[in-house]
C-alpha cells in the first residue's frame, strides 16, 4: 500500500466514525425540525423551528428547566465547596485516620445509585422530605462530594510544596493558605469539577424519578420521559423536546470540552 492510499484510508476511517457518532444526533435534529403532521405547511425553508416553541409550551419545560437549574445550582455549589475543603485536608495535611477516611470517600464513587436510592426514599418519606428539593439534591451532593474530594485531593497533592511552605513562613493560617495561595493556582481543576458535576446533576434521572413520587418537582430529563409517554407518536415534538433538554450540557461541552474530556479520562486514570 502506498502512502497516498494509506492516507486516504485513514481519512476514510476518521470520517466514517465521526459520521457514526454524529448520525443519531443529526437524525434527532432533523426530526425536531421536521413537520409535525402532513398539513404543517411549508415552514421556514422546509424547516419547522416552531416545533421548539410548541414543545417548550406543551411540555411545560419552562417550569421543569427551572427546577433543574435550581437543583444543579445547589448540588454544584455545595459539593464543590465541601469537596475543596475536604480535598485540602486530605491533600496537604497529615492527621490520624486520613488513609482510612479517604478510602471511605473513595467507596462512594463506586456505589451505584440503585443501592442508595431505595432506602433513601423510604427513610425520607418517613421524615416527610420526599417531594422536596432536598430529597433530590442531597443524595446527589453526597455522590459529587465523593468524586470531588478524590479530585481536589489529587489537585492539592500535586500543588507546589514550596508555595505552601512560603505561605506558612509568612504566617498565613490554613484558611488563608487555601483561599489566597492554593485555590488561584487550582482554578482549572475546580472548573473541571464544576463542569462535571453540573453535567451529572443535569442528566441524572433515577434520583429525581424516585424522590418526587407526586411529580411536583420534575427535572428536565424526567419531564422529557413523561412528555414521551404523552406524545409517543409525535416524533417532531418529542425530538424538539429532547434537543431542548440536551442543549445546556452540549453547549457547555462545545465551549469547555477540554475540561469534560480531561475530567472524565483523568478522573479514571490518575494516581
Amino acid at each position: 500500500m502506498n502512502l497516498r492510499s494509506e492516507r486516504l484510508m485513514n481519512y476514510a476511517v476518521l470520517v466514517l466514525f465521526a459520521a457514526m457518532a454524529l448520525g443519531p444526533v443529526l437524525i434527532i435534529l432533523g426530526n425536531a425540525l421536521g413537520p409535525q403532521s402532513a398539513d404543517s405547511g411549508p415552514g421556514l425553508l422546509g424547516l419547522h423551528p416552531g416545533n421548539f416553541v410548541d414543545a417548550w409550551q406543551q411540555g411545560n419545560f419552562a417550569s421543569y428547566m427551572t427546577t433543574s437549574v435550581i437543583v444543579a445550582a445547589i448540588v454544584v455549589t455545595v459539593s464543590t465547596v465541601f469537596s475543596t475543603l475536604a480535598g485540602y485536608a486530605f491533600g496537604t495535611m497529615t492527621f490520624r485516620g486520613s488513609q482510612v477516611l479517604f478510602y471511605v470517600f473513595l467507596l462512594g464513587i463506586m456505589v451505584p445509585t440503585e443501592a442508595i436510592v431505595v432506602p433513601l426514599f423510604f427513610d425520607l418519606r418517613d421524615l416527610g422530605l420526599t417531594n422536596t428539593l432536598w430529597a433530590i439534591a442531597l443524595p446527589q451532593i453526597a455522590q459529587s462530594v465523593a468524586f470531588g474530594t478524590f479530585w481536589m485531593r489529587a489537585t492539592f497533592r500535586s500543588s507546589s510544596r514550596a508555595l505552601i511552605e512560603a505561605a506558612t513562613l509568612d504566617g498565613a493560617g490554613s484558611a488563608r493558605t487555601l483561599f489566597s495561595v492554593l485555590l488561584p493556582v487550582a482554578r482549572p481543576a475546580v472548573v473541571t469539577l464544576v463542569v462535571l458535576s453540573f453535567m451529572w446533576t443535569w442528566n441524572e434521572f433515577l434520583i429525581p424519578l424516585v424522590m418526587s413520587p407526586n411529580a411536583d418537582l420534575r427535572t428536565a430529563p424526567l419531564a422529557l420521559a413523561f412528555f414521551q409517554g404523552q406524545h409517543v407518536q409525535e416524533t417532531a415534538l418529542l425530538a424538539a423536546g429532547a434537543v431542548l433538554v440536551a442543549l445546556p450540557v452540549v453547549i457547555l461541552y462545545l465551549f469547555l470540552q477540554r475540561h469534560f474530556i480531561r475530567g472524565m479520562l483523568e478522573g479514571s486514570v490518575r494516581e
Partner: protein
Amino acid sequence: MKSSPVLAAEPVRQAGRPRRPSIGARSRLTPYLYLLPAFVVYAAFMIYPLIRAGQLSLYEWDGLSLATFVGLRNYQEVFTDPDLRDSFAHALVLIFFYSVLPVLVGLLISSVLHRARIRGLGFFRTVVFLPQVIAMVVVAIAWRQIYAPDGTLNSVLEAIGLDQLARPWLGDFVLALPAVGLIGTWVQTGLVTVLLLAGMSRIPGELYEAARIDGAGPVREFFAVTLPAVRGEIVVALTLTIIAALKTFDLIYVTTGGGPGNTTSVPSYEVFRRAFELGQVGSASAIAITLTIMIFAINLVVNRIGERDNR
C-alpha cells in the same frame, strides 16, 4: 450516569518519608474541621443508606406494613429466581455491547489514527466524545425514533430494497436486547477511543522506529508495540464501561421498560421495579447490594492488574 474512577494502585508514599509540614495548622483538630461538612453529607446520604440497604435486604417488606425477617432468602432468590437470573444474564450481554465491542472498535480506530498523525484529530475527538455528555434519556429517545416501526432504520432498509429485514426493533423478542446494547456501543465507543488515543500518544516514537528496523509491518507493530503499551488504558476502559453496563437504568426505562416480555430487563431496572412498583423492597435491596458487590469486585480485580503492571 457518573463515571467511576478506577482505584488504581495508590503507592503508599507516607511511609518512610519525612513528615510533611502540616500547614498552618494551629490545632490538631484543623484537618477534621475541613473534612466535617463533606463527611456529614456523605455519611448521611451515602454510607447510612448503603448500610440500610444491606439491612433491608434481609427482610421481606412491601414498603408499608411490618417487615418480616427472612435472612438470606432474598439473596438466594437472586440466584434461583428465573426472572432475576435472566436479568443478570442480560447484563452480561450488555457488557459485551458496552465494553468488549467498544474496546475492539476503539483499538482499531485509534491505532489507525495514531499511525497516521493526520489533521482534524481534535475535531474528531470532540465529535466522538459527544455521546458521553448527552443525557441518557435524550439518547434513548433519539434511538427510539431510529428503531421505531416507521423510523429511520426501517426507512433506510426499505429504500435499499431490504424490506423484509424491516421490523419494530425494540418490540422484537430476540433483537430488542442487542438493539439496546448497540445504543450502549454508540455511547461508549467515543470514550474508549479518546482514552486509547491519549494512551498511544504517550508511546515513545523510538519503539516504533526499532520495530520498523526489525522489519515489522503495521500489524506486527500493533501487537508488538501499541497493544502492550496501552494495556493500562484498556483495563481502565473495560472497568468504566463494564460498570456503565451494570448501571444501565435510564436507557431501559425509556426505550423498552424491560420488554417485550422480560427480554430486556436488567438488574438496575429490577431494583426500581421491585422497590417502587411491585412492593418487594427486600428483594430490590438484595439485587442492589449484589450489584454493588459486583462493581466493587471488578474494581478490585482491575486494581490488582494495575498493580502487577506497575511492577
